[in-house]
């Protein structure tokens, strides 16, 4: 049912978008208002086509669905406001099954069959890493929304950029000082035993040491695991803070079993909301999370003091004050990550307009224009907050939220600064050839 409704929304919005654009095209000639000058110069009204590599099936499907909704909403908004360089934006969706091999095929399909202008939207790191070589070979820009450190590490290629969401290294460095100051200095890490978890481990340890804290135990969990209680005894008794980050469908079990194990007398908890994206914080068994802290890219729950552009963003993508779908309060969004789709599309729009992008021949110009970006102001285009883009490592930096669970809602208690997350770049893509 839900999927059907979705595709209906998609196809119907596709229709209205097209008809709306026809009207817009006609209206553009009439409107000689200053803001529209740029659009009048456009030589072609062919749509700009963006290939959206979407996790519709596979392990990433819960994220994929919301990434798709935000992408559709953002594209509609951009089109309603006149498109990019006066040209409408068209999103072409292909499912990658959250699989790196299929991801690479999908990039081929976008470049050679759909002939899109660029590929965008991938979340899961292994799909990004699996697809990046193909994007580089086919010389098609690849804008990912993944929060992995892969792009910033310099191991991808000149065509891969991550301008709409911060990476895990910056996130971890941002929250470490706050943890040391407010929760405690002896930290035990609980993380999945693969690359994503190892990134947390490797980046967090030096960051907490710099604050005079220490990691007293590390508990890597095998990714095939479905029950966790047996690992909790490895958490030392003198732990001040458990730093936990898990992904996948078993995460709820993980959090729940931690509650059963420690009861109310356990150490402080600091988690990455990745564990509970698309999961209601009030699910049975999660009561013990009350009072614990989470990292959030963007707050899930509407905050009392939120700026207007944030309210506008939430309304446009269709989430209510609890961060769930307006149509179905049980359908909780992936709010902490999905804003990245919105911001990335706006970065693409800005870069295309700077580069005066006309078509695939201008792809290198588009990348160069993106690389040249620096500061991005908070506002409608960047509702999550201000950002700084580092063109050398193709990675954006921004503020992070630390939220506490209070009365079954996440309340932002601290916002880190951009500087908290900055680190020495390890690479320079701008010196690499196209």
């Amino acid at each position: 049912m839900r999927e059907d409704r979705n595709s209906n929304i998609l196809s119907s919005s596709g229709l209205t978008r097209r008809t709306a654009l026809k009207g817009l095209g006609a209206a553009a000639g009439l409107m000689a208002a200053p803001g529209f000058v740029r659009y009048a110069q456009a030589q072609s009204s062919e749509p700009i086509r963006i290939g959206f590599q979407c996790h519709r099936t596979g392990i990433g499907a819960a994220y994929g669905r919301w990434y798709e909704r935000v992408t559709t909403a953002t594209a509609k908004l951009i089109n309603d406001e006149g498109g990019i360089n006066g040209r409408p934006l068209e999103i072409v969706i292909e499912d990658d099954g959250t699989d790196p091999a299929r991801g690479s095929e999908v990039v081929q399909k976008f470049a050679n069959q759909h002939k899109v202008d660029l590929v965008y939207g991938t979340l899961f790191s292994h799909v990004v890493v699996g697809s990046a070589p193909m994007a580089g070979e086919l010389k098609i820009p690849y804008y990912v929304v993944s929060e992995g450190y892969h792009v910033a590490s310099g191991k991808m290629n000149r065509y891969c950029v991550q301008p709409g969401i911060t990476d895990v290294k910056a996130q971890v460095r941002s929250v470490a000082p706050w943890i040391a100051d407010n929760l405690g200095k002896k930290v035990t890490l609980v993380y999945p035993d693969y690359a994503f978890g190892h990134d947390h481990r490797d980046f967090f340890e030096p960051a907490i040491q710099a604050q005079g804290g220490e990691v007293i135990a590390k508990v890597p969990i095998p990714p095939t695991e479905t029950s966790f209680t047996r690992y909790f005894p490895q958490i030392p008794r003198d732990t001040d803070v458990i730093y936990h980050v898990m992904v996948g469908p078993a995460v709820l079990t993980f959090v729940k079993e931690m509650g059963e194990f420690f009861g109310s007398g356990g150490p402080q908890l600091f988690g990455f909301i990745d564990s509970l994206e698309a999961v209601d914080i009030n699910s049975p068994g999660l009561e013990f999370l009350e009072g614990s802290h989470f990292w959030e890219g963007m707050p899930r729950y509407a905050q009392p003091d939120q700026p207007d552009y944030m309210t506008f963003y939430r309304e446009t993508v269709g989430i209510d004050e609890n961060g769930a779908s307006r149509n179905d309060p049980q359908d909780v969004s992936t709010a902490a990550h999905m804003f990245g789709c919105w911001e990335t599309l706006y970065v693409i729009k800005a870069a295309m307009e700077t580069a005066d992008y006309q078509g695939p021949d201008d792809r290198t110009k588009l990348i160069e224009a993106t690389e040249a970006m620096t500061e991005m102001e908070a506002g409608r285009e960047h509702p999550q907050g201000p950002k700084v883009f580092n063109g050398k490592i193709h990675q954006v930096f921004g503020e992070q939220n630390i939220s506490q669970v209070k009365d079954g809602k996440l309340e932002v208690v601290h916002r880190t600064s951009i500087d908290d997350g900055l680190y020495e770049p390890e690479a320079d893509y701008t010196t690499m050839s196209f």
Partner: protein
Amino acid sequence: MRDARSLWLHAAVILLLFALNFLLPEYHRGIFSRVMVLAVFAMGYNLAFGYTGLLSLGHAMFFAAGLYGTGLTIYHLGWSVWPALGAGLLAGTLLALVIGFLALRTTGVAFMIVTLMFAQVFYLTTLYFTTYTRGEEGLVLPQAMRTLALPGASFSLTDPTTRYMAALALLTIALGLTLFLVRSPYGRALIAIRENEERMRMLGYDVFANKLGSVVISGLICAAAGAAYAVLFGYVGSGFASIQYSILPLLWVLLGGAATTLGPFVGTLFMFYIIDTASDYTTAYLLVVGLALILLILYFPKGIAGTVRERWLPWLP
């Protein structure tokens, strides 16, 4: 006569695939390169499963051994493509020798489960050494290192034509090897073992050694596919060692026709296009894929090439 016909057929298939490099639209040409490499994986599987009757659910480990043997030596040791391919083949062959030696003590479903578990251990090993493999996320092999040096010239494997030709060359070798094997006395012995192991034993054959040989050659071919995949597509990740990649070659072989030389390629190609086409029309494409599999097996129970052989071309190898 019979021999000539099948040789001509295989030569024609290879020629056709060669011609397709110039005829196919760009996207489909890229897909054929990939399908040919994966079909070699399926051919390796077919040797053990189709011809020798060894139902393994662990062949992902041989493919992944080739993939990692080649990928890690390029990434960490900076080896060039030829020695790295050698490392991949060696890794897969040695692994097949050890696994075969242990697992062949069992037969039937027990063999299936033992191979499944060994493959699971291999998969977990790739995760355990995430420091070197980057586990699930995987590694990207730098473009510059994916260069194939031949006497007089060197080719970048990132070029679509080179990639297509390299994949075709691999497919030709694997197809030739399979054809040669199944027509040799050794191949006939394997088929006879599949049909009646007891009788072969009584006739004085060393059944264990014959089966071990089959597993090792099968592992070698699968590792070759994995090694080629690493250099042709530049990505090495533990997903290729997961159970999914043990089930896939089984599915491809059954769809194409077990114990047919061309079946694995036909099955791999068919499976790819059914997914690709169905996903163009509906978001619920797995439903279409599932229905297609069921209908296919209802009406072509021996797989595509297997049914063709049964009904029309009895000489098909």
